[in-house]
């Protein structure tokens, strides 16, 4: 392979530095603004690059009173439980639909795919949740979104592309479907499970809309609470002296940091599976 010229190398370095700056700059300003006081923010036109008077006041405001801490715990539980249940349901359904001899398999798959094109709408969903007695329960955040058709298709495609000989050999050895799934399919599917698990986890972590519709404020997850901080404030003309003041930009940026940290912590561990898993489901099948 030909060694790149000095100009080429310099060009690459410059390009990489530019891309790195473009990537890092927004993160840096978000973190710096979250650590600044209102005067520094105003003087920097809203986005601070380096905090001149660093303060943790925004974080203290957000974490004061325990509302955010409690919501953080709720969100972790909802995300963990929801992801486990979603993965279990998706794997089960995908495995069934990946079997070519399943009765009404295509029809069931079409029904699942139909939900990708047409969602039930807010009010029908609300009425369904209400009739199931799930209003103001954490189950209302999980059950209506238990299976994502997209994730189902990804996992099903992966299962369908596993060597059929393995299934046949297992059946000859007397294994049933549950045994095939647990001892053959799942160990071979770590990559796709990691990716789909991440999709579900991110979706549960970020979900706020169903919480707004179905839950009272004392059960809101973190995403909903943080959103309140971002939306905090009153429209022009309507606030009165006793009302809570408009958000400082520092609080809004601190909210962004807080909501990003957990996913950022998980991401590096799953990254190696990410490309492989998505491509597997996307191009084969």
């Amino acid at each position, binding site marked *: 392979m030909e060694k790149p010229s000095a100009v080429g190398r310099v060009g690459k370095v410059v390009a990489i530095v530019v891309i790195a700056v473009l990537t890092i700059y927004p993160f840096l300003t978000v973190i710096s603004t979250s650590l600044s006081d*209102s*005067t520094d*923010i*105003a*003087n920097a*036109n*809203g986005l601070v690059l380096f905090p001149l008077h660093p303060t943790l006041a925004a974080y203290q405001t957000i974490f*004061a*009173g*325990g*509302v*955010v801490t409690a919501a953080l715990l709720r969100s972790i539980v909802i995300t963990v439980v929801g992801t486990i249940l979603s993965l279990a349901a998706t794997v089960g359904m995908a495995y069934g639909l990946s079997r070519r001899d399943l009765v009404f398999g295509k029809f069931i798959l079409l029904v699942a795919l139909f939900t990708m094109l047409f969602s039930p*709408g*807010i*009010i029908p969903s*609300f*009425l369904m949740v*209400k009739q199931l007695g799930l209003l103001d329960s954490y189950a209302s955040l999980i059950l209506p979104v238990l299976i994502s058709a997209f994730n189902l298709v990804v996992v099903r495609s992966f299962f369908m592309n596993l060597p059929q000989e393995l299934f046949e050999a297992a059946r000859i050895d007397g294994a049933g479907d549950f045994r095939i799934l647990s001892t053959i399919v799942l160990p071979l599917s770590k990559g796709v499970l990691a990716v789909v698990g991440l999709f579900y986890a991110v979706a549960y972590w970020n979900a706020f809309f169903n919480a*707004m*519709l179905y839950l*009272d*404020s*004392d059960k*809101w997850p973190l995403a909903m*609470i943080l*959103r*309140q*901080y971002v*939306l*905090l*404030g*009153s*429209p*022009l*003309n*309507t*606030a*009165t*002296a*006793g*009302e*809570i*003041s*408009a*958000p*400082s*930009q520092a609080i809004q940026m601190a909210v962004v940091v807080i909501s990003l940290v957990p996913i950022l912590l998980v991401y590096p561990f799953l990254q190696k599976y990410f490309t492989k898993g998505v491509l597997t489901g996307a191009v084969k099948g």
Partner: protein
Amino acid sequence: MVATTTRRAFLSYTALGALAVVTAGSLSGCGAQSTLKAGSVSNATLPNYTAVKGVTPDLAPTAQGVPPAFFNYPKNPYRSVKSPFMKGQTVTGITNIFGPPPTGRSSNPAWQEIEKRLGGTVDITAVSSGDFDTKLNTVVAGGNLPDLMLNDGAAIPDIIGFLESSCEDLTPYLAGDKVSAYPNLANIPQVFWKQTVQNGKLYGLPIPRSMTGGSGFINQTYFAKAGVSDTSTIKSSDDYLALAKQLSGANQWAFGSTNFGLPPFLHIFHVPYNWTEQNGKLVKDYETPQWLEAISFVQKMHAAGAVAPGSEGWTKQQMQDAFISGKVAQIYDGLPAYGKVGGYQQTLPAANPANKATPFLPFSAHGGKAMVWLDNVDFAWTMVKKGSPSHIKLVLQVANFLAAPFGSQEYLLMNYGVEGTDYTLDGKGNPTATARAALDTAVPWRYLAAGPNALYSPQFPDAIKVLHETYAKLIPLGVADPTQGLFSPTQAQKGLTLGQTMTDAVNNYVAGRSSLADLKNAIATWKSSGGDQIRSEYQKVLSKSKKKS
């Protein structure tokens, strides 16, 4: 109207986009009439005003609506509701919340104390204003209406149909002297009740504000340096333009606000508030020569480099940052943003001790008396679900508690929490909040029912004086919208879209992206796309109500 397309309205519009069709069906499903019809304000009997004799303010209120002002919280707050009146019942409500949710009831001493004083439970569904329309319409469709429902003016398309089918007519309970059974509600002046009258009946409880949102703020230091210490003395729009040019320079502009912050200019040129009556006929502000003159003036200012470029697209935060940092000398924001903690009177000197903010006092473009709008009369009002007379009375008693005036024990409890836990009293009797107070007192009681406003800030008495003085000057100059409280089906269905189109047309013209002819075309389009229909609907109701009165 351009100037009154607020964040709330915009969010309502976007949130309703997906819901509009479904909602109409849902409301019909719960009994509303399938065809929209108009409502009038005239023939209801408003509750008689009886001021509570509780405390003496430092600066007196006026009959026109100037709020009382207090430099300290009154010592020995009085109890406005004598004893618990609920017998373990539950009253439910849905309303706005601004900010994080409160500490839950089980660990919130203020919430517990309030319910102890009530003798029952109040379950509140708190929703941010951006989500309110979605949530309320969903709750309505679900059929479980709460007892108290905030009507923010945008959530329910067929408000009259909904009121008639699902909400209690409060006229038999509150009209005239009947309101005396609820002294704190009787303490709300009649001007604040007017919007709650729909189709000739009293359908709600007002959440009063301070009559006018004012005309924005100026950097007093900059204006004084330019030789103007009182903007109300400016003699003409030409003088103001010369001043604006003087205040603009390198990276600094005389004016800058979201959507070009038009109201101050509309005030200066005496543009009516939304609609006006001319020879018995309703005329929209866009159709008046004053409006075109005002917009052309802003365009001239922009062309002269006196308006911050791109400011039409600013968020409120960007506008505040620009004003606080001294980049713009004048902005448009509501008067309540002045005297509170974190208000402009505090933030400008904090950023630069030489700078000082004061409210902008409008002048008249062609000499004579100035004008402002009465655009902040009520925050919104609360509807009461239909029920048995005994339950309605119970709900009204709860509302009476929530409307406890400034100076009462109940007001202190709802706004500052429990003494010792949420606040301590300083030597002058002013509550000083503890760390937990903010979330303990975040329960949105004040967005279900409230008493009249009071100006209060022990930290900034000078700001309170300035505000009181400003209200005293501006309210007598106030012009009301003759369609306030009237209902137009077309306005409810198309008003936001039509208003946004006009906002875009104005922004494009002022920023130099379109011509005056384009702006005039936009007005013609507004008329043909629904404006004339809105006019005829309002006109019909207005004429009907005049005949009745």
